[in-house]
């Protein structure tokens, strides 16, 4: 996969480049702050851009804004935001600006090749990825989910992570029809508006969880 790394920490940046290269990816661009990124993206057309959430100059929402900017100009290029924050609102904010083609990955999980690969390939295909650790954190913290059965809660988590109905069915080893029924129940019980697109579904679920988390 053709990748680009944007991170202001030299340590993480160089480590990531070495790691990604070692796993057979091609790093086509590197930047340490958001300013140079738009031109680099245009020139090197990567499949996915890995962006640190906090970057200069203000270290607030530069990463999220950069992600939204890249997605709006290059619908074919995915953006994976690397974050050290287990905070649902950041993920919700990211999805609110760009449903589809974006992902929120906790930095620790960069070290887990399977998670990183899943995230990058799903995003490259236009899907959505939300770190399972963050989703688990949000679901555990949310008392309103007591209305759901265990199975429904599992489906909710996988929905929030960005899995499609088929992906959920495979993960839980159940039929597609069963997943469909669970999803309907979840939306009805949480009073969420039902939606046809997978990406919009992730956005709705993450926004719900983030809002409940406060």
């Amino acid at each position: 996969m053709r990748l680009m790394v944007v991170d202001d920490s030299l340590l993480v940046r160089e480590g990531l480049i070495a790691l990604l290269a070692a796993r057979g990816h091609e790093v086509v661009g590197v930047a340490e702050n958001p300013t140079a990124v738009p031109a680099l993206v245009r020139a090197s057309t990567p499949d996915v851009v890995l962006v640190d959430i906090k970057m200069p100059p203000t270290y607030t929402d530069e990463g999220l804004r950069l992600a939204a900017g890249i997605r709006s100009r290059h619908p074919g290029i995915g953006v994976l935001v690397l974050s050290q924050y287990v905070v649902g609102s950041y993920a919700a904010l990211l999805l609110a600006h760009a449903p589809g083609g974006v992902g929120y990955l906790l930095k620790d999980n960069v070290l887990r090749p399977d998670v990183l690969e899943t995230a990058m390939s799903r995003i490259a295909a236009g899907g959505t990825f939300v770190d399972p650790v963050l989703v688990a954190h949000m679901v555990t913290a949310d008392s309103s989910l007591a209305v759901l059965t265990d199975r429904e809660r599992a489906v909710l988590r996988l929905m929030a992570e960005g899995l499609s109905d088929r992906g959920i069915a495979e993960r839980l080893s159940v039929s597609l029809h069963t997943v469909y029924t669970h999803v309907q129940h979840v939306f009805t019980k949480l009073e969420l508006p039902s939606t046809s697109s997978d990406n919009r579904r992730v956005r709705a679920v993450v926004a719900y969880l983030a809002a409940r988390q406060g």
Partner: protein
Amino acid sequence: MTSFADRLARPPLDRASLILLGATAVVLVVDAWVLATVPYLAPPGSVLREALFAVAWIAVGVVAMWLRRGLLARRILALSLVLAADFVGSFGLLGSDPMPRLLVTLTATLIPLQTALAVHLGASYPTGRLLDPFGRRVVVAAYAVAGVEAVWWTFAHVSARTCDACARSYLHVVVPESVHRAVSLVIGAAWVGLCACLLILLWGRYRRAGRRERRLLRLPYASIAVAAALYAVLSVVAAPRGTSAWGVSMTTLIALQVVALVAVPLSFLVALLRERLAYRRIGELVVKLAGGAGADLERSLAIALGDPTLTVAFPVGDGFADSRGRPVPRPEPDDRTTVTAVGEPEMPMALIRHDRSLDEEPALLTAAGSATRLMLENARLQAEVRAQLREVRESRARIVNATNEARARLERDLHDGAQQRLLAIGIALQLLRQRPGDASLFDAAEGELTSALTEMRELAAGIHPAVLTDLGLVAALDALAARLGARVVLEAHGPVRRCSPEIEAAAYFSASEAITNALKHAAPTLVRVSVIDRDDRIVIEVSDDGAGGADGDGSGLVGVRDRLASVDGTLTIDSRRDHGTVVTLEVPCA
């Protein structure tokens, strides 16, 4: 600044005024006897007019005396006495008996003196005092002109020229008409000049007066001004001829003058009575306060004393606060205002800044002060509590802010430091799985690990050093000094007790902030820290030999002050430029 204590006793009636009043009464009796026994030229109407005039002044003088306006009463009664003494002289006593001639000789000097006394009264109204140099000069000049005129009248009394049957002064000399006219003109011109000066003086005073004073001055000043202006006109145009230059008859002018001259004492009387009425408002104030409607004491006092500009300040801590507890500068008197202390002059319970004119009514101020004493004390306590509450609120907000900032800094330090390093180590280990023999990857991982450990240790010490909990304040400060290097020295000390954890923490972090502050700002060669266990307090002194001039309100030390205040501790800073700084921290330790 004066105090209510000085004003407490109602003073006795002014002695000089009483003597003047007595003298006037005696003179009036003599007047009546003379008019009954000696024939005179003037018609009864004119006698009545003069009598009315004298009585009006005496009445005002008595009222002023009764209201304990001693000086003003003296000026008025002095004028009354002269008016009464001159009474007989102004009617043209007839005949050549020794009695009328003696009276004419004696009273000839009094008419000019009357004018000078009137100028003096007008210039010193309403206090009776002359405080400005210009006013003093005008009055001195008036007495000088009156002296000259008196001498002139003694030798060339006007009635001697206009009336053959009139009694002659023993000192009378015949003066040629031309000389008489010339001298009269010169003296007249001098009076015109003096009247003009008086008008200028009054106008200037009125302009400088505060709102309350203006209200009191308006009517008397207007009547004085009209009387002075008419007197000036009469002096110039009317004296030598029977009619004025504008064809107004002498009679009309004299009538106008009489009206103006009667208007002056009447206006004085009205002004005095109006002041007297203020006491009724004090009564109303008392009733209102007793009814519990004294929420806004300042406003109530302002209304009762008729001074909308009145303000009350309460001593709170080192400074002053208004009734809402907001800090205000110490009230200072200026051109228009005076500051009166309520309570002990050294430790007043309140300072009232009010219009200058109230100084002339000490009894009124005393009454208002007594009526509101309890309320003022109550208001002062409230202001003090409010001021303390405000300080506590501000301090609490600062502590919360400081805590939030510290948390944010800690979060940043953890995320940017240790976490990034651990991530880098993780990445290095991942790569090592693929390149097991790569020594540089081992080195990198080891280096990151060492740095991460150091950072964590420092971070932990910054949050709460274990040595403080385990071994106490001195050991913790010793460790801090060791960490900061040779420039910081913990000096010898006796044994120091252990205190509660929050007090030790407050003392430790305040001291460490003071030390850091000194190192950062003062550029010292040495910072000495001493810890002393004194009775029920622990005293930490941080002294440096740096630049000095430290500011206790600088944000670094405000945080320290707040932190100490949260455990009832105190912070004092002694810092003169070029003499280094000594910061003393004290915390209670039971």
